[in-house]
């Protein structure tokens, strides 16, 4: 079967084009590094079937980072594949650098000039026909998000060929000279004396590229900063940037914390589940499964008992966690598409330096607030192993995922605002302390901070909706089954009367060290499976009044520092190796109980 590989600089729209070509949904965002692994899809054209491969963005075909390695490998492993190189039309020079590398590898290429609308908006123009003639390959202008030109991409796959880069061919053409004069006022790196100046000592590739640009790229309008551009700069201003960050944080807290965790959870839990579903399910179970026979009683309790599938697993999964996950993913999608996240990286770069990281690491960490498993995979965008290990450790330790955040927000309602603030500051403090210590202890380099900033864009409602739905589907498939499994384990343990024994076994740790009631041992037990589900048990105990505010704080701290979930553990093992995963896990659990105990003692001492 024929293969097409989509290759290109980061954040140029490869994934958009991929989903338009194959009709398959992939997550699309406005920051470099959204795609960190390959996605395959199928496309049929004139009865012929093509495999289409979407790859992570690269600036050059060199395996500088893990995600770039993925692209290099896929290009090398498919020597006969047609390369559809997607380019940001505004950044033609950078795209041609990559085209030049593909030409050196003798690959057949179709060049797609994407985001033609943005090129137009900033006053640029590319003579695509002339570029096609000069390079000897099909050049297709597109606006992939608007589906413009996508069918032309499909058609030109058949005529793909190896690009030509002749240095001597294009001696300055007098006909294009006026255009160059105009280009001086704009981005203007095309002046002829510069081109001549380069002829001594510069690489022949660069020379040919300058030449091509001179003949095809013109800038007709002097650029004036748009509102979006100004907004983008404000986001990185030392003062305005901080203010914007604070506004973003407050809005997140209001939308997810107040609206999602408050209003929506209340409605779903109190009105829908406690009001209708649980009583109805109990009535049905009571009617169908009489309590007097052991077998039917067993089944009855399995569904609606103390550790019942409906009364516990589903009611938690849908009533408490789902609204928070939904509101968080919705807001997160908007943030991703706006282009704000890389600007946040600029703001925090200095602080992250102290932790042996650079600002780029803020991307996986913010992503971790959505899902730690996905975020662990995103650490691929970081360049050195040291950065990847430290970021993964911080994700596993102190970054609560959206599901857990939801439960924690609900727990905070039962403690004072001061305790909630203490919890927040402690988590931030732990992050910096462990990051700083890890940076001191772990040998290795921190990479240079060179980060490309995507333009600020207005998020598209359709894309944000699709993304939120896709992530919600993932949540339902991944998280709910684990909730069910955790409940089932507890149910069986309870029936076998092992739960009390386990509680006694864990008593020295849970009661002696953390000062919590012994039955909370089960919370930590399921916490091994998913820490958010463990938190649910603690929330339950807090609501029943079995935990004092002091206990709630200790429990919150301990469970937040737990390993996120079993899926994250597997992901760490896959990304960093089993040994590192084992060390991280060991450290995380020991550290969680250690800090929990210290908080207990300290809070007693302070009289809380």
């Amino acid at each position, binding site marked *: 079967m024929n293969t097409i590989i989509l290759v290109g600089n980061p954040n140029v729209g490869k994934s958009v084009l991929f989903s338009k070509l194959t009709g398959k949904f992939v997550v699309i965002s406005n920051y470099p590094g959204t795609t960190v692994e390959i996605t395959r899809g199928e496309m049929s054209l004139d009865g012929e079937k093509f495999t289409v491969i979407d790859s992570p963005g690269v*600036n*050059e075909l060199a395996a*500088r980072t893990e995600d770039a390695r993925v692209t290099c490998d896929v290009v090398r492993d498919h020597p006969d594949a047609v390369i559809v190189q997607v380019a*940001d039309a*505004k*950044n033609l*020079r*950078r795209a041609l*650098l990559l085209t030049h590398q593909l030409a050196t590898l003798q690959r057949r290429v179709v060049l797609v000039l994407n985001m033609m609308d943005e090129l137009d908006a*900033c006053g*640029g123009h590319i003579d695509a026909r002339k570029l096609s003639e000069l390079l000897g390959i099909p050049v297709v202008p597109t606006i992939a998000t608007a589906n413009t030109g996508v069918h032309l991409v499909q058609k030109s796959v058949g005529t793909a060929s190896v690009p030509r880069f002749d240095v001597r061919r294009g001696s300055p053409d007098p006909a294009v000279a006026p255009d160059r004069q105009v280009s001086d006022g704009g*981005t*203007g*790196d095309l002046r002829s004396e*510069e*081109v001549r*100046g*380069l002829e001594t000592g*510069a690489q022949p590739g*660069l020379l040919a590229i*300058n030449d091509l640009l001179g003949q095809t790229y013109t800038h007709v309008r002097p650029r004036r900063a748009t509102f979006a551009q100004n907004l*983008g*700069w404000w986001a*990185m*201003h*030392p003062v305005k*940037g901080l203010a914007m960050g604070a506004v973003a944080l407050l809005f997140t807290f209001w939308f997810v914390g107040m609206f999602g965790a408050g209003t929506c959870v209340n409605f779903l839990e109190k009105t829908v589940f406690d009001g209708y579903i649980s009583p109805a399910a109990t009535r049905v179970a009571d009617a169908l499964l009489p309590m007097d026979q052991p077998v039917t009683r067993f089944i009855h309790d399995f569904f609606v008992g103390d550790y019942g599938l409906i009364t516990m697993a589903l009611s938690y999964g849908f009533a408490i966690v789902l609204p928070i996950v939904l509101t968080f993913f919705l807001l997160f999608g908007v943030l991703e598409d706006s282009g704000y996240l*890389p600007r946040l*990286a*600029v*703001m925090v*770069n*200095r602080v992250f330096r102290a932790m042996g990281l*650079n*600002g780029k690491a803020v991307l996986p960490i913010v992503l971790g607030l959505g899902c730690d498993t996905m975020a662990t995979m995103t650490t691929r965008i970081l360049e050195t192993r040291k950065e990847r290990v430290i970021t993964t450790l911080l994700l596993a330790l102190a970054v609560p995922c959206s599901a857990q955040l939801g439960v924690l927000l609900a727990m905070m309602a039962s403690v004072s605002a001061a305790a909630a603030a203490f919890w927040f500051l402690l988590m931030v403090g732990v992050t910096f302390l462990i990051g700083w210590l890890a940076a001191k202890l772990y040998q290795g380099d921190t990479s*240079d*901070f*060179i*980060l*490309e*900033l995507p*333009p600020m864009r207005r998020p598209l409602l359709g894309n944000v909706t699709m993304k939120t739905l896709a992530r919600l589907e993932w949540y339902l498939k991944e998280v709910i089954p684990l909730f069910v499994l955790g409940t089932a384990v507890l149910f069986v343990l309870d029936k076998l009367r092992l739960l009390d024994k386990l509680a006694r076994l864990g008593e020295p740790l849970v009661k002696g060290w953390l000062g919590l009631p012994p039955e909370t041992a089960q919370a930590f037990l399921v916490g091994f499976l998913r820490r958010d589900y463990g938190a649910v048990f603690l929330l339950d105990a807090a609501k029943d009044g079995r935990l004092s505010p002091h206990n709630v704080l200790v429990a919150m701290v301990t469970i937040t520092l737990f390993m996120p979930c079993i899926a994250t553990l597997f992901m760490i093992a896959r990304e960093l190796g089993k040994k590192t995963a084992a060390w991280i896990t060991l450290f995380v659990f020991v550290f969680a109980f250690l800090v929990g105990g210290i908080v207990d003692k300290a809070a007693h001492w302070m009289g809380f």
Partner: protein
Amino acid sequence: MGKFCKLIKCPSCQYEFPEPSHPLRWLAKWFHKPMTGAGALELTQLTAGETVEFVGMAHGAERRGRALAVYGMTPGARLTLQQKRPAYLVRVGETELALDADIARQIIVRRAP
């Protein structure tokens, strides 16, 4: 140089001197005078908002130079310095790049005639 030896020695003339200590180097940074030729400047010497021409990387920064070249920062390209804090922000064509100050210090530019 061995791990515990702090002497730097010239291989040809055998001249040797102790490696400057950390605080001394830190202090030297404040009095640092960039070694650049006629008309050439370090990016850090510009004020925000200036547009200049990229000349090349400082000696010893070739690897970083290659990392920057893929963003279109090649000799002759026009750079606009947007801001200097909290990180250096440079515009090359339609690409906006955020950089650390220690990279910016190695970028040699020339004010356009």
